[in-house]
């Protein structure tokens, strides 16, 4: 039977919001002004049913006659230039499964396959081929996952014959052949390739493709953290491996709250009343660089699964996102070949995070966006997730021999093959072509179902161990879970999205939304029943043995048989040379601005400072009903808070705080002090809302250029900074991730990102009622500046960046004083003495003041002392400094007598910021003007 096509459009008098949004972009992003209208139609295709049945489905499911009409097997968009955009075959369209389900619910029989796509019709004098090509290329079609449909497909059913397992003759390869085998695929170096060769020589056989791929992904930088485990020689001196340094610092902190650090899929700390909370922050830079929507989606989905797969199963309660891009205003000509424009990337990445988090029902409520032109080849896309579980279920479980290896959730397709190895390699202009299979479109509903089922199984004590299928797929999940026992896998049992996968592809596919559990055979029926009740597919894929071997069988044929010890410990430890050279310091501080008010406006409009409200509005930050301090508040609901506080256990007053800090620009100047700044900023954000410093744990994310000796030198300094921070404050890192491949290389062009250390802080708060927001509360309050800073340390600040000043005098945070400041500020807030508090970061004291004014619907007067340089006073960005609103002057000494503190001004009813120096007014400016400048940049990017 042929394919039936149903097309659905809105009636003419009903707005077509999809068309309107595209038209806005055509006009504003592409600058094409004479396309006047865009109309869209949804296209549905069905295989296996007749035209009458298609009509029933169209009438009862696809089209709503109140405002839509449909056509069957004929066009519906008339006159204009019509193009259809669909997912490529093999990219699973999540909507197809829903259509099949619903058709079955309607009693439709015989339907074999369904698909959906969208048609666009362009009208107006500009609706010509050339312009439409541009629209397709720049806005509508990402070649990685999408295509233009030119003719009706013959079939929707994907067919394929399973590939065979190939033996790779590594034993007789010379070095150049080994390198050729590794290139673009395995991403291993020659030493590592030789170790593999030697192993199989000793075994007296050649490996299968499955074995080579398994080794490559387990030994990838992504999974093996080779750089972080390597012995380092820094400027000729041997130093402890980076990972060990961090872990030792955590151990030495002996923080009693730590329940699980660096051993599980996320770090776990104690909460209250028998609960534990956990956190994990991941990066998804490589996929997001080539397919930002799918890349960001799978980033979110992956980090949620990390939390779900912690202990014996956790519930995800917070999602965070931190991004670094090139400025959205970047000239198109500056975008390197093989890369996408930052504005497109930003919007698509936000859409990916939005669609995954919102649909899973996880509040995305903490995040930031940072800009630097050296992110133009490869952005940094950082996504975090936090969870809660019973304390008795919070430690990583382990299987016993005889336990079943059960996989639940989504099916396996050819998605993300080589994701682990791909993200460990440098990006080149070949990246998009060679690695397009590394991206897929996530299905958050699949993951939500799996989460519902997992939590019930966990609650009922049926889960012995659980982990997610992330990078490396089954291979990585089972290889790790069975490390101590050994595991045997029957690969043909894996449910597939479509036929035709080779065994090694099934084994290493990174299809999302899959979890692996170890289940006692006696409990399998119960687990199976739970999964069925949530519409979750579950199969027994294998069993844990006792022979410490990783054995994979496909239809009776052994396709992989490796020693667990060789797999996990066979990787040779690297010895790496590191050497960091300070950058040449350019001109120092730019001096005072010509026009004070104008400078203030410019700082507020700088992309690092400006309001990110349009992004936040698209995230459901209120779902789960747990919010106790939202990301935005204040009289107009647009004033940002430093951290988010949630109360995840209903009816209880205790809460959880989440915050973060990063500053790539500072790391470019000095990675040690830049990293101290990041950690200080993360913690300052949490303390500013009322968190106690003794109740916080940290997560590190290093996103670095490819570690040549110079970048490695910078990394070494950043890790030292982290260890020193832990030593001085007692706050431990309990989870972390490194992604060391953010270098772009293409015939003569070399672009390294500014090194990013993102520090996330999370912790517990005894009483959410004792927390504060950043909006000014009352007129006539005293504003105090609390914290130590040398305001001449201006390098890396927004003020300097705007003037092109590139000095080396960056903020050097004094950790000893910092600890005192954190302690005293916490005591003041917990004692109910602080009306509002805001931490100083990008944009300095001036930006912080402005945001507090916006939230309070009022203004302030500020006095700068004669000894201060006004532009330094206003725009210095030393972290660990706070603006604190207090009712009365005398409390300042009582609360902050032991730490650096001064009264800088007071709040006033007029919506003005007035700045005085030496008793004379230096300048004044209306807060409305500042707010307008602060809101405009992201409004322009997101068209809101």
């Amino acid at each position, binding site marked *: 039977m042929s394919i039936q096509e149903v097309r659905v459009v809105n009636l003419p008098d009903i707005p077509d919001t999809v068309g309107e949004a595209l038209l806005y972009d055509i006009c504003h992003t592409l600058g094409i002004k004479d396309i006047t209208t865009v109309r869209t139609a949804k296209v549905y295709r069905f295989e296996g049913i007749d035209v009458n049945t298609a009509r029933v489905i169209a009438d009862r499911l696809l089209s709503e006659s109140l405002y839509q009409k449909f056509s069957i097997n004929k066009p519906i968009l008339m006159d204009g230039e019509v193009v259809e955009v669909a997912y490529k075959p093999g990219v699973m369209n*999540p909507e197809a499964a829903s259509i099949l389900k*619903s058709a079955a619910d309607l009693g439709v029989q015989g339907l074999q396959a369904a698909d959906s796509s969208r048609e666009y019709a362009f009208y107006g004098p500009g609706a010509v081929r050339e312009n439409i090509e541009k629209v397709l290329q720049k806005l509508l079609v990402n070649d990685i996952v999408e295509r233009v449909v030119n003719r009706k497909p013959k079939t929707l059913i994907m067919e394929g014959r399973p590939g065979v397992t190939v033996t790779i003759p590594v034993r007789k390869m010379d070095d150049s052949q080994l390198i050729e085998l590794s290139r673009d695929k395995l991403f291993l170096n020659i030493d590592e390739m030789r170790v593999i060769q030697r192993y199989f020589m000793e075994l007296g056989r050649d490996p299968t493709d499955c074995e080579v791929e398994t080794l490559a992904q387990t030994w990838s930088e992504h999974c093996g953290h080779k750089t972080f485990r390597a012995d380092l020689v820094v400027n000729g001196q041997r130093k402890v491996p980076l990972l060990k340094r961090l872990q030792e610092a955590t151990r030495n902190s002996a923080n009693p709250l730590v329940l699980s650090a660096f051993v599980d899929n996320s770090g776990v700390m104690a909460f209250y009343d028998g609960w534990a909370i956990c956190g994990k922050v991941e990066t998804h830079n490589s996929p997001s660089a080539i397919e930002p929507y799918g890349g960001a989606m799978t980033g979110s989905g992956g980090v949620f699964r990390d939390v779900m797969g912690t202990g014996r199963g956790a519930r995800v309660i917070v999602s965070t996102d931190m991004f670094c891009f090139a400025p959205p205003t970047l000239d198109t000509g500056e975008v390197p070949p093989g890369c996408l424009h930052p504005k497109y990337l930003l919007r698509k990445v936000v859409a990916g995070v939005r669609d995954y988090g919102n649909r899973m029902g996880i509040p995305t409520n903490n995040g930031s966006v940072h800009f630097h032109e050296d992110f133009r080849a490869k952005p940094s896309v950082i996504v975090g997730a936090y969870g809660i579980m019973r304390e008795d279920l919070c430690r990583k479980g382990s299987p016993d021999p005889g336990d079943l290896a059960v996989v639940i959730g989504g099916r396996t397709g050819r998605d993300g093959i080589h994701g682990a190895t791909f993200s460990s390699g440098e990006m080149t202009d070949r990246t998009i072509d060679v690695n397009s299979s590394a991206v897929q479109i996530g299905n958050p509903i699949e993951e939500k179902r799996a989460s519902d089922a997992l939590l019930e199984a966990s609650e009922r004590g049926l889960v012995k161990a659980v982990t997610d299928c992330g990078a490396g797929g089954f291979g990585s999940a089972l290889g790790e879970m069975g490390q101590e026992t050994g595991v045997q896998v029957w690969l043909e049992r894996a449910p597939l999205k479509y036929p035709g996968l080779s065994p090694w592809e099934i084994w290493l596919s990174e299809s999302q939304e899959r979890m692996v559990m170890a289940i006692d055979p006696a409990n399998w029926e119960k687990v199976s029943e739970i999964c069925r009740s949530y519409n979750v597919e579950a199969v027994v894929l294998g069993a844990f043995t006792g022979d410490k071997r990783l054995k994979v069988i496909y239809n009776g044929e052994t396709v992989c048989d490796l020693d667990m010890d060789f797999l996990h410990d066979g990787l040779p430890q690297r010895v790496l040379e590191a050497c960091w050279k300070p950058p040449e310091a350019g001109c120092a501080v730019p001096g005072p601005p010509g026009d004070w008010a104008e400078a203030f406006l410019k700082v507020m409009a700088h992309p690092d400072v400006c309001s990110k409200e349009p992004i936040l509005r698209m995230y459901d930050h209120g779902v789960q009903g747990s919010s106790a301090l939202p990301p935005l508040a204040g009289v107009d609901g647009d004033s940002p808070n430093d951290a988010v506080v949630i109360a995840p256990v209903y009816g209880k007053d205790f809460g959880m705080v989440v915050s973060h800090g990063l500053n790539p620009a500072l790391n470019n100047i000095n990675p040690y002090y830049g990293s101290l700044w990041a950690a200080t900023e993360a913690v300052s954000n949490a303390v500013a809302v009322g968190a106690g410093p003794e109740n916080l744990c940290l997560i590190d994310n290093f996103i670095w250029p490819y570690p040549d000796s110079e970048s490695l030198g910078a990394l070494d300094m950043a890790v030292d900074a982290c260890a020193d921070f832990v030593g001085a404050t007692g706050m431990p890192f309990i989870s972390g991730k490194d992604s060391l491949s953010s270098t772009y290389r293409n015939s003569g062009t070399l672009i390294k990102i500014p090194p990013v250390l993102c520090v996330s802080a999370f912790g517990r708060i005894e009483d959410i009622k004792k927390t504060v927001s950043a909006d000014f509360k009352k007129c006539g309050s005293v504003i105090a500046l609390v914290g130590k800073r040398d305001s001449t340390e201006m390098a890396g600040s927004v003020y300097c960046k705007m003037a092109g000043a590139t000095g080396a005098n960056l903020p050097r945070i004094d950790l000893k004083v910092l600890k005192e400041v954190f302690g005293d500020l916490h005591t003041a807030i917990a004692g109910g003495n602080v009306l509002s508090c805001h931490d100083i970061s990008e944009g300095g004291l001036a930006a912080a003041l402005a945001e507090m004014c916006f939230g309070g619907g009022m203004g302030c007067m500020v006095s700068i002392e004669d000894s201060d340089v006004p532009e330094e006073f206003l725009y210095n960005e030393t972290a660990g400094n706070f603006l604190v609103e207090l009712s009365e002057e005398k409390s300042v000494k009582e609360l902050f007598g032991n730490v650096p503190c001064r009264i800088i001004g007071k709040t006033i009813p007029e919506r003005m910021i007035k700045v005085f120096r030496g008793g004379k007014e230096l300048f004044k400016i209306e807060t409305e003007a500042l707010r307008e400048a602060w809101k405009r940049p992201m409004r322009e990017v997101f068209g809101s």
Partner: protein
Amino acid sequence: MKPRVCILRTDGTNCDMETFQAFKMAGAQCSMVHVNQLRSGEDSLSNYQIIALPGGFSYGDDVHSGKILAVELTSFLKEGLQEFVDSGKPVIGICNGFQVLVRTGLLPERKMGDIRCTLMNNDSGRFECRWINLKVEESRCIFTRGMTGQTISIQVAHGEGKFYAGREQMELLENDSRVVFRYSTENGDPTMDYPYNPNGSLNAIAGICDSTGLVLGLMPHPERFVSVYQHPNWRRGAIDYPHGLLVFKNAVDYCRGM
């Protein structure tokens, strides 16, 4: 006896826990019920006095928001649901639940399969999450007893919330006092202005009920404001009670009086 509430969920429901909590605080006894349990006969709607359809993205909101679940309910639970509402038991649909109610026909005419109004893409074309003001209209609705005339603060979080119906149906809803909530300014004046009216709903309609006042559907999330500390500005001292809780209490009180 505490009234029993069926929190009806399925794949992609994600406001079930907070809806459960809201009814619990209001004095009800709640059960999480997956639609599969009703389809298989393992549980029955007749075991409950109230049905709540929570927010979320049922089946990913594929095709139209709430549509796949609406088709499922219409195909398999038509009689059970019709009996439930015909016997005078309250039903509330919040956000995605509202979308499901209009796509089953339970709103506005309390008749399964009779679809008279819809919720379509926000005029902004975007999903949006923000706190807005709602004017509580004088209506038949039992969920808003004692709230009439108030302006309440509440969060919306949706991409498909623009209420739309034909002219006759709109007139019927207006004349029959079935408009329960309208998007409004701080002063309680209904408005079409964005972002006060976050989606462009006709007549600023945020929630409606059926002719008995027992079936309520609304886009905003009252279950997210059942404790003072959930409001973004409780620290500013302007909030003396959680505005959403009364909606749930009214339903519970109504059942107690039955």
